[in-house]
């Protein structure tokens, strides 16, 4: 006699799939880190054995003290934490209008906190110099991050102008070339 077998359809058990999925979501949410992957780009000059000599008198020298005080040439001192950006811009504007390539040198005291240098560099990066087509007129103005992003989104990207010629010499370079 032939026995009748009860055959069930083969199937993959999926009842726990939602549980597994939610476990994976929890894992990803716990391990996800919101990376702070933004910052200021800084093109390093080539380590040249014979760099062009810039006389201190031909440039603007910003010295950063450990207290956050900024000594800009012979101007009255400014302070990083007290809205220095506008004062610095007002000082640089006529100089950059006269010479858009004027080097601006940031020199930080060895024991000054690093953030002061970054804040000064940030303020300088916001200054743009636009020269008219005939090269006779120059406009020196400040931009915000939103302005830069909006300009980059245009097709073709809008030219906001040139950056200030910022130089951040290292102590070794200062010792080698200035003194």
């Amino acid at each position: 006699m032939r026995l009748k077998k009860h055959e069930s359809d083969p199937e993959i058990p999926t009842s726990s799939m939602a549980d597994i999925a939610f476990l994976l979501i929890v894992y990803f949410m716990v391990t996800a880190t919101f990376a702070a992957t933004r910052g200021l780009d800084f093109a390093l000059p080539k380590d040249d054995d014979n760099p062009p000599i810039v006389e201190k008198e031909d440039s603007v020298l910003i010295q950063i003290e450990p207290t956050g005080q900024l000594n800009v040439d012979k101007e009255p001192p400014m302070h990083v934490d007290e809205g220095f950006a506008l004062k610095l811009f007002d000082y640089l504007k006529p100089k950059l209008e006269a010479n858009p390539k004027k080097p601006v040198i940031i020199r930080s005291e060895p024991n000054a906190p690093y953030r002061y240098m970054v804040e000064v560099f940030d303020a300088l990066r916001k200054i743009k110099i636009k020269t008219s087509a005939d090269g006779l007129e120059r406009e020196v103005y400040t931009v915000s991050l939103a302005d830069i992003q909006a300009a980059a989104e245009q097709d073709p990207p809008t030219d906001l102008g040139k950056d200030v010629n910022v130089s951040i010499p290292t102590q070794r370079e200062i010792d080698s070339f200035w003194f």
Partner: protein
Amino acid sequence: MRLKARHQAGAVIPTASMADIAFLLIVFFMVTITFEKDKTQVALPKTDLRFEIPKIVAYISITDAGQIKATNGEEMSTTLAAEDVVTFAANVVTRYPKRPIVLKADGEVPYEKVDKIIDSLKQAKVELIYLLSDAREIEDGG
């Protein structure tokens, strides 16, 4: 006359699509997740301008205690002596010429420590670095 009791359906939350939503979320997380090679905790300086940094970069971190950690973007960051930064950077430049180096330094670190790192990077012929920063909070004007 007695009215016939109404047939009341029980309140049910539709869960049929929950698994689909869950898998969509998983796909989203899997696509967007980035495994950071450098997890050094530092209080970054704050800036207004912050530009997007490429996803694969080499990191040099300096903690508030002055400890230096570095990764070429392939392995997890390891502690490095200040005098070894030139060799590290030169290796990155040789093996990954287009890879930028990100300087992730604590804002309170004395500048001389950062100065030595930048000097080492210049000696190693690094052309572009990024100074990692946090967004400056907008202050209330009053």
